[in-house]
C-alpha cells in the first residue's frame, strides 16, 4: 500500500464542510487535508466536541483519511492575516490554537497536524529562538498525534534544510515530522521536489500537492507551473511514503469542484502505469487487441482494492485491475467485443466487463451480461453488476432482486448505484419481508437493510 490522494478543504472555502467532503470523496480522493477555520470545524466554536464527532462520522462514512491543517488566514486575528505566529512577540495564542488542533486531530483519527513557522519581523536569531521554544512547548504538551513542520516561502522556516535543522536542535523528537508542499520546492528550494521528497524521506508525515514556478509563491493547478508531477509522485512511492498527499489550491475555491476534478485527472495521468496507457492506445487502434490485453491486466497493474480501508475486498469501489479493465473497455469504439470478453473471462475479467458497463453502453449487449452476473452466487460479480448501467437499464423487477441479492449475500449496498433515487415502495416491502424472515429465524438483519427501511419510512 502506497500513499493516498486527498484534497485540501481550504480549496473549498465557499462550501459547507460536509458538502465539500462529499464532493471530494465523489471525485475519487480518499483523504482530505482539513484546514480548521471559522466556518470549517471552528476550534473556538461553542460545540466543538460535538462538531468534531459529526465530522469524524462524516469522514468515516465517506471513507476519507484526514490530516489537520492550521493555515487559516483570519482565525486568530480578524485584522492581520496568519497572525499571531510562533515567531510573534506573543506566541501564546498560536500555541493554544495548535494544541487545540492537535486534540481535534486526535479525536478525528487524523494522521498529524501541520503547521508553519510564521513571517518574522525581528532579527533572525530572535525569531529562531522563539520558534524553537514554541515548538518545544507543543511537544512538551504530549500531543496524541505528530506535528508536521511545513517550510513556507517567506517564513522563518522556508527551506526543508531549516526544518531539518530545527528538528535536530530539538533532539529529533519522534512527534515532530515534516510536511512538504511540493510546489514550495519549485518556488524556493535549490533542488527539485523529487529530491526534497527523498531528503525528507521517512520524516514525511504530510504532503501537499500543487504546481508553481520558480521564484513565485503562487499555488497553481497541475501543468500551469514547472513541477514534474510524475517524478514527484514516483519519489513518494520510492521513499515508502504511506500518508496522505493532498492537493493544496487555496485560491481556487470559486471553482473548487472543477479544479478538484481536473487535479484528479492530472494525478491519475501522472500515476498511470505505462503499460495501461500503451494498452489503451492499442485498443483504440485495433479493438480486437483487447482480447489478449484484457486477461493480462492484473499482472501489469496489480489487483489491490482501490480503497482498502473502507472496502478491503473491492466489492464496492473495485480493484486496481477492475478500473484498468474498465478503461480498456472505454477505449473500444462500441460494445461488440463485450459478450466474448465476458463469456471467456475468468472471474476477474467478468468483473472488469461489469465495471466497464456505462449507462451509455448498448443495452442489448449489457443487459444479458448483467443478468448472467446476477444469476451467479459469486459476490464479486453480483456487486460489480449493480453499477450505473444496471441502474439505468435493468428492469425494475430485476434491479430490486439485485438489491435484495446483495443484502442476502452480505454485499454492502454501497455497491448499488443510485440506490437512494431508485429505491421504491416495492423494494421497501421486499426488504421488510427479508428482515422479518431473518428476525423470525433469530438471525441478524444487515445494517444496510435497516438503513434502507428507515429511509423508506422517512
Amino acid at each position, binding site marked *: 500500500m502506497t500513499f493516498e490522494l486527498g484534497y485540501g478543504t481550504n480549496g473549498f472555502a465557499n462550501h459547507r464542510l460536509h458538502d465539500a467532503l462529499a464532493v471530494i470523496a465523489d471525485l475519487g480522493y480518499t483523504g482530505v487535508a482539513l484546514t480548521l477555520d471559522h466556518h470549517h470545524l471552528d476550534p473556538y466554536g461553542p460545540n466543538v466536541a460535538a462538531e468534531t464527532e459529526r465530522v469524524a462520522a462524516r469522514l468515516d462514512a465517506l471513507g476519507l483519511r484526514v490530516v489537520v491543517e492550521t493555515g487559516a488566514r483570519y482565525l486568530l486575528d480578524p485584522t492581520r492575516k496568519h497572525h499571531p505566529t510562533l515567531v510573534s512577540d506573543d506566541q501564546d495564542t498560536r500555541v493554544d490554537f495548535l494544541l487545540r488542533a492537535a486534540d481535534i486531530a486526535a479525536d478525528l483519527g487524523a494522521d498529524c497536524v501541520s503547521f508553519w513557522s510564521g513571517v518574522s519581523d525581528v532579527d533572525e536569531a530572535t525569531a529562531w529562538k522563539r520558534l524553537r521554544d514554541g515548538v518545544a512547548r507543543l511537544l512538551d504538551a504530549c500531543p496524541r498525534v505528530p506535528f508536521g513542520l511545513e517550510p513556507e516561502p517567506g517564513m522563518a522556516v522556508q527551506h526543508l534544510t531549516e526544518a531539518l535543522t530545527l528538528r535536530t536542535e530539538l533532539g529529533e523528537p519522534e512527534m515532530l515530522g515534516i510536511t512538504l508542499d511540493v510546489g514550495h520546492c519549485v518556488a524556493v528550494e535549490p533542488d527539485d521536489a523529487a529530491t526534497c521528497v527523498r531528503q525528507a524521506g521517512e520524516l514525511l508525515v504530510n504532503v501537499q500537492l500543487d504546481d508553481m514556478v520558480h521564484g513565485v509563491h503562487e499555488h497553481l493547478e497541475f501543468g500551469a507551473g514547472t513541477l514534474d508531477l510524475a517524478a514527484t509522485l514516483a519519489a513518494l512511492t520510492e521513499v515508502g511514503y504511506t500518508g496522505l498527499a493532498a492537493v493544496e489550491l487555496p485560491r481556487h475555491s470559486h471553482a473548487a469542484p472543477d479544479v478538484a476534478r481536473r487535479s484528479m485527472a492530472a494525478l491519475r495521468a501522472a500515476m498511470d502505469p505505462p503499460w495501461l496507457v500503451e494498452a489503451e492506445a492499442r485498443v483504440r487502434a485495433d479493438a480486437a487487441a483487447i482480447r489478449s490485453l484484457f486477461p493480462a491486466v492484473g499482472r501489469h497493474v496489480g489487483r489491490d482494492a482501490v480503497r482498502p480501508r473502507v472496502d478491503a475486498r473491492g466489492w464496492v469501489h473495485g480493484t486496481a485491475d477492475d478500473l484498468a479493465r474498465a478503461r480498456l473497455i472505454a477505449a473500444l469504439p462500441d460494445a461488440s467485443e463485450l459478450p466474448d470478453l465476458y463469456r471467456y473471462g*475468468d472471474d476477474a475479467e467478468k468483473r472488469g466487463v461489469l465495471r466497464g458497463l456505462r449507462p451509455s453502453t448498448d443495452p442489448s449487449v449489457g443487459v444479458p451480461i448483467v443478468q448472467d452476473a446476477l444469476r451467479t452466487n*459469486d459476490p464479486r460479480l453480483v456487486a460489480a453488476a449493480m453499477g450505473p448501467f444496471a441502474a439505468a437499464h435493468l428492469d425494475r423487477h430485476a434491479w430490486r432482486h439485485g438489491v435484495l441479492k446483495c443484502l442476502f449475500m452480505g454485499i454492502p449496498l454501497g455497491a448499488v448505484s443510485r440506490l437512494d433515487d431508485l429505491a421504491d415502495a416495492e423494494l421497501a416491502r421486499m426488504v421488510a419481508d427479508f428482515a422479518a424472515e431473518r428476525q423470525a429465524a433469530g438471525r441478524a438483519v444487515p445494517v444496510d437493510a435497516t438503513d434502507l427501511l428507515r429511509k423508506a419510512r422517512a
Partner: protein
Amino acid sequence: MRIFDPHIHMTSRTTDDYEAMYAAGVRALVEPAFWLGQPRTSAASFADYFDALIGWERFRAAQFGIRHHCTIALNPKEANDPRCTPVLDLLPRYLGKDGVVAVGEVGYDSMTPEEDAAFARQLELAVEFELPALVHTPHRDKASGTSRTLAVVRESGLPPERVVVDHLNEVTVREVKDSGCWMGFSIYPDTKMDEDRMVAILQEYGTDRMLVNSAADWGRSDPLKTVKTARAMLASGFTESDVDKVLWQNPVEFYGQSGRLVLDDLPGFSPSPETFSGNSVLRGGGQ
C-alpha cells in the same frame, strides 16, 4: 520435502487426493489440458473445460493449500476430430490468462496430418504468447514419434529451453537431452515409468532439465508418485538438495518462464470458508 507436480489432471481426482498430496508435501502443480477419456464433440465443451482449469479447479486446489496452474491446448488425440478443431481459434482467449503457464499438451498421438497442423499452429501460439510448451509424446511408436516431435519443435523457432518433451523413457531420453529441451517423466503404477527406473535415469543423465510428474488422471494412476520418486532418490543416495532440485526447483524454473507462477503460501494455511460461485467444496466451510 516440498513437491511441485508439473503434470497432473486434478479435474479427475478427488478431494482425498488433494488432502493426501498436501500431507505428502505437494504445494504446487500444473494441470495440462488434455482429453477426458471420453471424446468431446464440440469446441464449446473445451471452453467449459478451460473455464474449469482457470477457475474452479484452481479454487478447489487452494482449499487444500495447493497452488494450481494450468496449460491450455487442443490435445493431439482430439486434433483429429473436425468437430473439435475450431477450438484452435479460441485458444488465444485463454493463453493470456493468469495461471496459464504453458501451451499444452500438444504433440502427436497417431502422427496424422491433422495432428501435424494442430501441433505446428500451437507452437506458433507459444511463440506469440511468450509461453513454454508442454509436448506429449505418443504412447505407440514412441521412439519415432519423439524424433518427429523434436524436428517440429526445431522448425517452430521456439527455443528448446522453453519446451518440455513429456512421457519419456529409457529409449527416448537421450535424444531429448541432446536437443536442449527439458525432459519429462510420468511415473505410473504399471506403465510409462516407475520410481526405480526413474532413479536409474537420473543417475545416468543427471538432474539438469529433468521433470518428474505423476500424470495422474481418470485412469489407474497415483498422485503421490512424485513423492514416492523423491523417497526412492533418497534411498539410492541422492541428497535432499538433489530431490528439491528435481521435484521443486526444476518445475519452478521451467514454468517460471511464463512469468505467471504464483508460489507464495496460501493464507493460513487452514481450510477457508471461501466459496467459488457459491460452492465451498468443503461442505460446511470447515467451520
